[in-house]
């Protein structure tokens, strides 16, 4: 029983990473119609920037700030590129944004793998991870750290906040309108550039915060981390229903727990395959996602 | 030929069609009118199988087609055009028209796959001829090799009609073929529909253009809020007070 509880807590903490990443992914889908399946790679990039600044200056807050700013910068630079392609392509083919996202993923992963720290994994200082302070709760098997609690809470808050922002506010409506039809949005008087930049910056902030939380939670990162997460994030979003923020929250946590339980009770090397098979069954039964797509 | 018996269609709480019945006779032009949102497009979607009916039955030549998959219904000889003017932009006009004939059988495999790579097969050549013929009938033969993405609105509608007609269906459902057209083009559409009738196809026309519709239609069904409120000749329709109120407004 203790094992099960411990695994559920482990799963929730993995799940909260999925939740944050899926939320960022969905947000890009909602405000820019981009299927950015390398979004986790961009997040890992921000982790690296944050680490580089932390090790260079020795100041953790500065590192956090740099991480968030870099995420904003990457988004604000790249999202218009996606949009440009979408505009030329018409609205038929958002699947193809996956391809350009893949290109970005290739570039970033490769840069990470031979510039920062000579390509070796990076480790974040205790001042950020709080590892030296020990766990909040700790029995023989169950262990809950500050980072885990923080990530989960912030994950949930972000989902609720974004839901409110997108569906209940003036800015959110404008974001969604631009995503669906930039030209039409322009004709009804939404300032494209300004609103677009705002929405990309928002995604950037989310990405940056995710990067910092992942640094706290995982304590280290490697160049391949983003790719490892990419497929799962895409899968979670599809299963929950593309663009469904609440669905992403629930399915993200569920997948985390599912994976933890598979790894804990069945063979570890099968966990990916089993997790994907379960997701496959769900997606075949409900092609539009469990909670419905909000596109 | 096509009989609609007690068809209802509900979207959640919204009743888009309520127990609608009418018949479409062979060799006549059948008009459907009704205010916006009265369920005309929904009716078409139900007939062609794109939507499942909530209740009721649809028969083609006394054979029930309710619940059949949409592509089968289409192959039984019911074709349609779309209100939004859907074309495949990456194909030329003539290819768009040719795509109206699908009807692929196993025995077509040799002809399709085992011929010279850069030439048309026998069936293809025939299809192309047929399509060019239809385009000529519409006066669009000069546009045959233009890309569909370059067409203007009125041309898109004509190409849509050509694509539906080329397969020689029994029934052709036209959803607002004259929407967004000027009086002259609208008149052309009217003429075209008459020609289509002469080809042995029974056109069913949804249109808000009363003048055109009343000119060509032989029977008119009037829908209002999903109810079939009237059916008769154009003259009768124009006299009926309920229709006048619902559709034309008291003028």
């Amino acid at each position, binding site marked *: 029983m203790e094992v099960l509880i411990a695994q559920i807590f482990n799963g929730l903490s993995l799940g909260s990473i999925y939740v944050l990443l899926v939320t960022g992914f969905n947000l890009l889908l909602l405000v820019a119609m981009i299927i950015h399946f390398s979004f986790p790679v961009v997040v890992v990039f921000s982790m690296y920037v944050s680490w580089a600044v932390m090790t260079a200056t020795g100041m953790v807050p500065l590192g956090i700030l740099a991480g968030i700013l870099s995420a904003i910068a990457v988004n604000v630079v790249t999202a218009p*590129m996606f949009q*440009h*392609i979408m505009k030329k*392509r018409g609205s*038929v083919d958002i*699947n*193809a944004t*996956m*391809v*350009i996202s893949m*290109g*970005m*993923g*290739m*570039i970033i992963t*490769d840069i990470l793998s*031979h510039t920062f720290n000579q390509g070796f994994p990076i480790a974040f200082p205790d001042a950020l991870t709080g590892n030296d302070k020990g766990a909040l709760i700790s029995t023989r098997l169950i262990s809950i750290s500050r980072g885990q609690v923080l990530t989960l809470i912030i994950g949930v808050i972000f989902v609720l906040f974004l839901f409110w922002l997108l569906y209940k506010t003036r800015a959110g409506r404008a974001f969604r309108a631009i995503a669906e039809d930039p030209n039409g949005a322009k004709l009804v008087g939404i300032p494209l550039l300004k609103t677009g930049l705002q929405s990309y910056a928002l995604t950037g902030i989310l990405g940056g915060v995710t990067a910092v939380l992942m640094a706290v939670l995982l304590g280290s990162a490697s160049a391949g981390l983003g*790719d490892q997460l990419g*497929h799962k994030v*895409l*899968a979670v979003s*599809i299963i929950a229903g*593309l663009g469904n923020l609440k669905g992403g929250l629930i399915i993200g946590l569920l997948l985390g727990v599912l994976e933890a339980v598979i790894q804990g009770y069945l063979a570890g*090397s*099968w966990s*990916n*395959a089993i997790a*994907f098979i379960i*997701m*496959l069954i769900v*997606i*075949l039964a409900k*092609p539009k996602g469990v909670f419905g797509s909000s596109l | 030929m096509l009989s609609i018996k007690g068809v209802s269609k509900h979207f959640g709480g919204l009743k888009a069609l309520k127990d609608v019945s009418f018949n479409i006779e062979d060799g006549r032009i059948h008009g459907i009118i009704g205010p916006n949102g009265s369920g005309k497009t929904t009716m078409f979607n139900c007939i062609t*199988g794109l939507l499942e009916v909530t209740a009721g039955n649809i028969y083609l030549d006394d054979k029930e087609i309710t619940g059949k*998959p*949409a592509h089968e219904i*289409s192959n039984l000889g019911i*074709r*349609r055009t*779309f209100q939004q003017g*859907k074309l495949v932009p*990456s194909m030329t006009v003539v290819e768009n028209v*040719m*795509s*109206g004939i*699908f*009807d*692929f059988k196993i025995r*077509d495999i040799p002809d*399709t*796959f085992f011929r010279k*790579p*850069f030439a048309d*097969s026998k*069936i293809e050549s025939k*299809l192309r001829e047929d399509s060019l013929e239809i385009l000529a009938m519409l006066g669009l033969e000069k546009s045959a090799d233009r*890309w569909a993405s370059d067409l203007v609105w009125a041309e898109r509608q004509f190409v849509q009609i050509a*694509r*539906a007609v080329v*397969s020689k269906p029994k029934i052709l459902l036209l959803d607002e073929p004259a929407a967004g057209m000027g009086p002259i083009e609208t008149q052309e559409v009217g003429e075209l529909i008459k020609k289509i009738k002469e080809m042995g196809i029974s056109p069913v026309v949804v249109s808000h253009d009363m003048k055109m519709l009343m000119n060509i239609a032989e029977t008119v069904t009037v829908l209002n809020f999903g109810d079939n409120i009237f059916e008769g000749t154009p003259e009768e329709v124009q006299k009926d007070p309920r229709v006048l109120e619902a559709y034309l407004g008291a003028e």
Partner: protein
Amino acid sequence: MSLPLYYFLAIAAIYILMSWSIYIPYRVGQLHFMTVANMAISAYFAALMAINFSWPFWLVLIAGTLLGALIGFLVSLAIGDAPCFAVVIVGFTFIYLTKTIIENVEAFGGPLGIFSIPKVMQTSSSNRVFLLITAYALVLLTGYLIKRFDRSRLGRAASAIFIDRDLAVSFGVDVKKMGMFLQSWASAVGGMSGVLYAFIMQSISPNHFTFHIVGICMTMLFVGGYSTIWGALLAAPILWGFPLILPEVLQSWNIVIYGVLLIVVLVIKPEGIITRPMIKKLESILLRKKKLV
């Protein structure tokens, strides 16, 4: 023939086939990464049959292709008309599943892989000539079939499905059957490439069939242009070839160059370098010349 040229051409053939295997279902808008799993499965099948049961090459090739088709067909029963995203997930699932199974089953060589897949011909050089001719014969055959498909009712129906399913259905196209056909076909091409790959490389391991193949083939398809078969046909050899001749200073940036190329092409020309109108124009010029002669 020189050895490097042989390997360049032989592997180019595989990339062409694999890019086409993604092109085929993308005709109806489905990104069917399943074919990479088919490639792995048939490569392993080929290796095991050739080593353990001494099956002749032709038998292995046909059986491996059919195996791909069969798996593709069975899967397509469930996802023939599924939306693109569901199909993507199915592809990922099968890639993970295949990799996990071959890594964990000792009979498949486990994580070490399988070595010394036999030659088809007695001597190395005749073996190479034979494999190269076979590979390009298969490229020709596949290209020919795709070309015929594109120029037929089936091809137009597929284009219609790509734009709007309801539209295609209104012509009487069975969307599911079409999807099943294309997916099975693509999986067969994937399987065929796998068999060729096994015999060309002579040893295989789980690490040969990872997502990098998905990435490379998608890059080739989308840089070349996804609206005709010519895009992948031209882009595959070029994209695969140019890192081989890059100067040493740029070598270590070749993946970045790939990525940048992909993005630049998509930004400037979203349909890829070679588009349908271009090919049509070219064909009409060539045909007109013929007529004049």
